[in-house]
């Protein structure tokens, strides 16, 4: 596949790595915001090839990981109802709420379906007028526009049996929260390219200036990430802190105006809890009052859900770079993708899952064996 192979070329990667090695003169800590970038970094072994002084901190940008427990529990409650067809992207099915997940709801008789597009859920609603069809709308600015468009379409077409359980989150307030923390070690950001392809770059100059951090808009293929790192460390070494676009083939400064207009029409900004982090003001979207009829929380009255969380999990520290996943006592022993203690172990984009999948060689031999599934 040419357009992917081109961005995995080992020769070009070597040149970028040589440049990075020649540039870095002292320790730096960069955060890649997006879980897709974390996954790519670990999958391709990029962190092993970077200078030792350069630390990549895995950010909270995994939509599956950060969806609050309360919302997962609401999804489980709604999906369990006999009149409901509950539609979701695949990777949300395995995320545990309090005591169970959507796979389990399905095994108990719930009609839970994996879809590849929110419009598929709308089609299911049209085909099943006597059922209630609910789509689980989660994710960052990347997935929000098609979800917004789907609600817009449902209203336009008068599809009354369609609603959406919305738990969208926004990246800039999360960056602000991370940088405002007294224990923050992050000195620069690789911003999520897909998010910026929608929202543009306008939200970042203020953050770069206020916290004096370079923010480099970065893609997801190995060469994209190396180029993002190269530009970020070049700024750090020079004492600069500007917003730079290293993903120009996908990101325009103004983003995608049509998508943004759709977001503004359908959603409104709200405070949002991030799983493992807590509530970050202004960091989420919910359906605006104009679309209240299509709001699943309103339609199914799922307030009053009580959530329970284990005390032992340290993924909050992982999310802000204070702890590497394999340094956690529970990692690979009581906490595995089979029995996740924390959300970062659940999603394939979560930092703990990425380390579990790809990095057990870094662990002491005895612990690696313990972490390896018995076949």
């Amino acid at each position, binding site marked *: 596949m040419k357009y992917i192979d081109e961005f995995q070329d080992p020769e070009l990667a070597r040149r970028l790595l040589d440049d990075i090695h020649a540039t870095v003169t002292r320790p730096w800590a960069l955060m890649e915001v997006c879980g897709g970038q974390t996954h790519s970094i670990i999958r391709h072994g*990029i962190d092993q090839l970077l200078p030792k002084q350069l630390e990549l901190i895995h950010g909270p940008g995994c939509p599956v990981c950060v969806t609050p427990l309360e919302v997962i529990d609401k999804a489980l409650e709604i999906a369990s109802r006999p009149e409901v067809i509950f539609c979701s992207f695949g990777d949300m099915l395995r995320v545990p709420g*309090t005591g169970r997940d959507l*796979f389990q709801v399905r095994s108990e008789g719930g009609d839970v379906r994996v879809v590849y597009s929110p419009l598929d859920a709308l089609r299911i609603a049209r085909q099943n007028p006597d059922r209630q069809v609910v789509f689980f709308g989660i994710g960052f600015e990347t997935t929000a526009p098609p979800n917004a468009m789907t609600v817009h379409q449902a209203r336009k077409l008068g599809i009354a049996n369609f609603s959406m359980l919305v738990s969208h989150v926004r990246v800039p307030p999360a960056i602000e929260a991370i940088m405002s923390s007294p224990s923050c070690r992050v000195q620069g950001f690789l911003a999520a390219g897909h998010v910026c392809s929608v929202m543009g770059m306008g939200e970042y100059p203020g953050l770069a200036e206020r916290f004096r951090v370079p923010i480099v808009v970065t893609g997801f293929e190995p060469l994209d990430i190396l180029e993002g790192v190269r530009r970020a460390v070049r700024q750090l070494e020079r004492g600069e802190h500007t917003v730079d676009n290293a993903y120009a083939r996908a990101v325009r400064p103004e983003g995608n105006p049509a998508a943004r207009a759709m977001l503004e029409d359908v959603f409104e900004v709200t405070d949002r809890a991030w799983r493992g982090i807590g*509530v970050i003001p202004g960091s989420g979207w919910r359906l605006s009052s104009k679309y209240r009829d299509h709001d699943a929380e309103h339609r199914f009255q799922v307030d009053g859900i009580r*959530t329970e969380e*284990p005390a032992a*999990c340290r993924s909050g520290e992982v999310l*802000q770079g204070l702890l590497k996943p394999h340094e956690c006592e529970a990692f690979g022993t009581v906490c595995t993708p089979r029995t996740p203690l924390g959300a970062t172990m659940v999603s394939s984009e979560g930092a703990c899952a990425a380390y579990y999948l790809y990095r057990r*060689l870094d662990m002491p031999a005895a612990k690696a064996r313990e972490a390896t599934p*018995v076949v």
Partner: protein
Amino acid sequence: MSDTTAVSAAVPAAVPAAALDIEAWTCPAPLRDRPRVVMGHGGGGALSAELVQQIFAPAYGGAALAQMGDAAVLPLGGARLAFSTDSYVVRPLFFPGGSIGDLAVNGTVNDLAMSGARAAYLSCGFILEEGVELDVVTRVSEALGAAARTAGVEVVTGDTKVVEAGHGDGIFINTAGIGLVPAGVDLRPQRVVPGDVVIVSGAIGVHGVAIMSVREGLEFGVEIKSDCAALGGLVDAMLAVTPDLHVLRDPTRGGLAATLNEIAAASGAGVVIRERDVPVPPAVANACAVLGLDPLYIANEGKLVAFVPREHADAVLEAMRAHPLGADSVIIGEAVEEHPGLVVTRTGLGGTRVVDLPMGEQLPRIC
């Protein structure tokens, strides 16, 4: 794993960003177990293995089950008999490159072939759903018969059951097969030793993507046909070069990753593959990139993985390439002493990562 040490943590109260207490960040997902069967139990990954180890094996006992191979190799009257069974629940019943009828023959024939046996006889059990058209049953049966003739195997016994409408998926088929293991052939993961060369017989991920393309209504720009085929002839060609192959497996559910993990775990050897040498057709890579799936975990139906002593590798590879079903055979790695029981890939950029056993089924990512 039922410890649910919980703290009362409804959604935390909102705090101004500047006051965010990072030290108090916690991660909340509770431990849990599964009281019911979920789809992942049939996915060929860790959940499937647990089902066998924790429920089936203890309940059945017996030495044959301890082999845990695709086929059991059993002594009988001085000969060694290979015996295997498999059930087919694919949807849709017809897909590009084959049908459930072809699968039901080729799957069992291949399970036998992986023990070195040429399948001789098959049984065939149909479970039909009330309402399925007889024309469909006819077409599936004809496909099954044609596949059997191509594979050189006879269907000698069968069974039919009908379940009420809504209790099946049109047609389910179970096949069981028997064949003889030639003298001198001993294929099992315990024979793998460091230095063995890992060969795959061609492009991987094709069957799984072909099924996804029709089942989910996804169009990937080019039609992808299943690689469904009977591998007995290819195995014969390999054994003709040397009976001293160490292990053969067809990487079906769970894909190449699951197969290599099973061999690594059962043999105690480490396995290293070179990612760039694994043959992934552009159409499969494309589809996987779109869906966020890894081709290493996608099912195949007409491919095999061989662990071959290094001294025989070139000759075996040559014989495989001379066979139509092995024309694109390639060496992708080797067994090693390091990291026993683990499968590791060298990435295209020069890094390394562990290739794990899949948990259940792969799930398309949100973005």
